[in-house]
């Protein structure tokens, strides 16, 4: 069954910025078709892990493999939705321009955007309910609309793996629902999705796998197995009491308890 390579495999990964270690000895094997939530406190290295998989940050030790290939060769299979702050919202591009960028990977050096590409971009905008904004400059949108544009671009990429860094930050409740349902339908069509998420209360409903991260990998596995008070305490430590309280409350909810007993 496991003869196919993992979509994402991380082995003994160590990453540091100017000698300050941020990730230490992370091992991870994500199976095809998982919808993975990456959870951990601020500064835990979640974005760093995503950036390392995307080959934007060079690891000090260990390696990343994408579908069994090196990151350099593998990133073309990944659709990446960047963290909001890293986008230049003043840039002179319209919503349609951004979504069409998702098609660039399918064109060669001198290929042209075809009618089929435009149709596809149209459909993706429709899926995220943004078609009526196609000619707006991306800075003239609300946070939720901006996030949906980037989701539409990711859909247009037709990748098999998706990485998203905090797609729910600065987003209204309706958009959050839309995004979640799109993520789930992407998973159903066989995509592998890795989503950095900061809200513990919703994490257990959104994802079927969780990665608990705080410099080291605390745990990785199916949500019911990993979403336990003990592991969440360990991830958030004593230093963020609000978080750990939220964590214990969330973990005490009955559905998780039953799931846990079933799991064990």
């Amino acid at each position, binding site marked *: 069954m496991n003869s196919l390579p993992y979509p994402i495999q991380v082995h003994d990964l160590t990453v540091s910025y100017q000698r300050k270690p941020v990730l230490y000895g992370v091992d991870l094997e994500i199976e095809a078709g998982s919808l993975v939530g990456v959870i951990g406190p601020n500064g835990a290295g979640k974005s760093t892990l995503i950036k390392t998989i995307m080959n*934007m940050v060079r690891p000090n030790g260990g390696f990343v493999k994408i579908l069994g290939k090196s990151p350099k060769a593998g990133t073309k299979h990944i659709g*990446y939705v960047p963290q909001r702050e890293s986008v230049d919202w003043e840039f002179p591009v319209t919503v349609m*321009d951004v979504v069409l*960028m998702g098609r660039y990977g399918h064109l060669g050096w*001198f290929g042209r955007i075809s009618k089929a590409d435009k149709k596809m971009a149209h459909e993706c905008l429709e899926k995220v309910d943004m078609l009526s904004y196609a000619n707006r*400059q991306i800075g003239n949108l609300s946070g939720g609309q901006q996030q949906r544009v980037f989701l539409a671009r990711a859909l247009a990429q037709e990748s098999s793996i998706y990485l998203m860094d905090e797609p729910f930050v600065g987003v209204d409740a309706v958009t959050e629902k839309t995004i979640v349902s799109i993520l789930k339908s992407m998973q159903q069509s066989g995509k592998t999705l890795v989503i950095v998420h900061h809200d513990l209360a919703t994490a257990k409903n959104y994802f079927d796998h969780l990665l608990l991260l705080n410099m080291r990998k605390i745990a990785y596995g199916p949500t019911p197995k990993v979403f336990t008070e003990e592991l969440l305490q360990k991830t958030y430590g004593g230093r963020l009491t609000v978080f750990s309280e939220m964590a214990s409350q969330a973990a005490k909810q009955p559905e998780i308890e039953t799931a846990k007993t079933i799991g064990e």
Partner: protein
Amino acid sequence: MPLIPDFTINQVFTQPWSTTQLITWNLQIILMGLLVCWTCGLVGSFIVIRRMALMGDAISHGILPGLAIAFITVGSLGIGTMFIGACLAGLTCNFCIEWLHTNTKIREDAAMGLVFTSFFALGVTLISGNAGNIDLDPGCILYGELGLIPLAEKVEINGTLFGNRAIWTMGVVFICVVTGAIVFYRQLLISSFDSTLAKSIGMPVKVIHLGLMLTLALATVASLEAVGVILVVAMFVFPSVTASFFFNRLSFILLSSFPLGILYTLGGFHLAHWLDCSIAGAIAVTATLLFIPACLLGPNGGVCSRFMHR
């Protein structure tokens, strides 16, 4: 003597076009002005959207010693040697900044400030020190002399004269820049907007960046005689910034370089005839005069439109 001379339609608009000789002379100036504005406007749009406007400023200063040494050793303003000189100086600049930034406690911005100004100073010293023995005019390299472009030597192939060398050079550079912008539009757009996406789909982001920097140096060198290393920065920055108050797509901003270039050149030319001043300076002043209403009244983020949206 009044600060602003009297304005007479005859002197400003009619007189420059009164005899065949004046017309041939002035048409060359206008043509050169247009080519400079268009070339720099296109290159500058890509520099500005990458948030590198100040880099354009810094680079145009930093390449000065390279230009000076190329001119002094070869003795001509031919584009080939000047371009090589400019590139070598630019690379040396870059290397010095990197070295200072990684091996000392000097931060990157301070390192840039130090290196670019010291290169500029070295260039000024070289040019003014050699001004006596060869015909290298510091004023021309720093501020340009568009009005004297018709004096540039003629291109001669097999004994036939083909017209002004400076204009031909600028024309070829212009065509290269237009072709490059059309052929590599997608690459330039995506690597400027989202270099992670560009890299992930296998685009050579660094090569594209380097190519843009080389084009910047080439445009600077070709426009040198006309507008000089200081005013060229205005030609890079003004068109796209002005157009951005009207359009929100890169392709429209790029196309705006053409009408804006015509306004800048004709406006600057006639302004210079009125005020009896440097044409290059007058072109930059015209660009500023057009920028101000755009910034105030432009529908796309101008001061008034922002005020009304509150």
